[in-house]
């Protein structure tokens, strides 16, 4: 038992370390004073400020546009790629290439794309970020779908082909339904990653638009304000809700699958 008790020190240290800043962020978001450091009293004014901040709202909309666009690209191409890699080739090289964007440092991908967009003289904007996010998001979708695929029953597809169905029909009628949960998970992952992505967006967005992380970055560079705390609290609430809803949905999904 002595072992366990000693182990609980780093265990609790981890959670305190992870949550202390968050508690402070949330508490200070209700500060009635101007300072981000000293709590003076309860107020919701920073939330009102936040809602009225058009730059943040524009940033939020842009972020959602980018995340949606790149998720669509990544989900479609990533799913096809996963199936292609698992069922239609044995090339190790292609396997590796498909994983590169997931392990490559974001900064390297960012500058590569900046050079590339410069070379083809593309004017930067939201769509250049969508294309860029599509690259790494696709790698994650492909990885998630492949995991699902390795669990899926390949003999069903064999049977379908033996019965004369073409690859597209087999994919549509047999593979896709089996993969659906993996595709949804991959798409959610892609969407989440894009929402939070800063570095690649920062390099490839040009100057006329900003995504939310970029807005936050420039706000922080220009000073500390409780408005950012309010934003953090809202983001946390959204994540928390998403987690709970997600849990519920998987549970429902599982119980249905068992029926």
């Amino acid at each position: 038992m002595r072992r366990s008790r000693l182990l609980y020190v780093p265990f609790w240290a981890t959670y305190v370390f992870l949550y202390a800043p968050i508690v402070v962020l949330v508490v200070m978001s209700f500060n009635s004073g101007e300072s981000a450091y000293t709590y003076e009293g309860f107020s919701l004014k920073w939330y009102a400020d936040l809602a009225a901040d058009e730059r943040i709202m524009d940033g939020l909309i842009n972020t959602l546009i980018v995340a949606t666009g790149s998720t669509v690209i990544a989900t479609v191409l990533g799913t096809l790629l996963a199936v292609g890699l698992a069922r239609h080739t044995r090339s190790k090289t292609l396997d590796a290439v498909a994983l590169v964007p997931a392990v490559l440092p974001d900064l390297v991908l960012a500058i590569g794309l900046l050079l590339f967009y410069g070379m083809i003289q593309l004017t930067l904007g939201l769509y250049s970020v969508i294309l860029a996010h599509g690259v790494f998001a696709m790698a994650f979708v492909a990885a998630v779908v492949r995991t699902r695929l390795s669990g899926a029953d390949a003999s069903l597809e064999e049977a379908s082909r033996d019965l004369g169905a073409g690859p597209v029909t087999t994919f549509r009628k047999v593979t896709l339904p089996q993969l659906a949960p993996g595709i949804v998970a991959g798409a959610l992952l892609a969407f989440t990653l894009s929402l939070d992505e800063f570095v690649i967006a920062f390099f490839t967005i040009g100057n006329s638009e900003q995504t939310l992380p970029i807005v936050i970055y420039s706000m922080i560079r220009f000073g500390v304000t409780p408005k950012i705390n309010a934003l953090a609290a809202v983001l946390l609430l959204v994540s928390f809700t998403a987690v709970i809803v997600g849990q519920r949905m998987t549970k429902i999904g599982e119980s249905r699958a068992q029926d």
Partner: protein
Amino acid sequence: MKVSIEARPVSPSRGRRLGAFVFLAPGLTYLIVLLLVPLALVLSYTVFQRGRFGGVVYEFTGENFARLFDPLYLSVLGTSLKIAGLATLIALLLGYPTAYLIAQLPRKWKTIALVAIVLPFWTNFIIRAYAWIILLSGPGLVNSGLQALGLEPVELLYNEGAVVTGLLYSYLPLMVLPLYAAIEKLDPQLREASANLGASAFTTFRKVTLPLTVPGVMTGCLFVFVPSFGNFVIPEILGGGKTAMVGNLIRTEFLKARDWPFGSTLALALIAVLLVLLLAQAWVARRA
């Protein structure tokens, strides 16, 4: 129906080739155009000269590589290794016991504990760094606490320690998850057997648990080290412009100095360091 039956003997191979094309071509084309070509560009820019305001002059030069070995840039690489290494080490020291204990929790608590590890990860990455400004700065919370205890305020923000803290905070969940996955897979009977044979808890850990979780340790370390090593945001926000990591240099060369060829060379150095680490990991994983 008749057609398809007649076509049956040939259809697998032709269908397969068509299938391979239909499934692989779109994604691979995308990756070639938006991943491989850009990476090739980074690679090729390393041997060209800078344009006056960004861009590139296509005249061969080895100067960028010579510059890389300038003590200035070597020392920045060294600092980056040190900071990212420290963040990784602390993440491991905190993360291993945490993952170990989570794996032994009852099922319901396990899920909650894991979600609680990941949840902070879902606020914005930059806000996570920002939180530490509030905690660490001169008039910030930690110092207020120290002063309340009658102690002298200390300088916590705008130094390497603050950068390490920020990186640790950002990537700690990436250490815990793979470790948890590795520990969870362990057969509890192995440990029991070891204990029954008279091994102390520590010996069991050292001889049984640890060796079997080495791949998880490696993965976790990689997950923390890679994004830390190439980071420029956290050193900028928490380093007060007084700490330079290789990411900051790359960012400066690209967006401020507009020296794209040298920025590319630095990026190549970054990849090279990470590649060496990846190979080392693969080597260790194979031996384990």
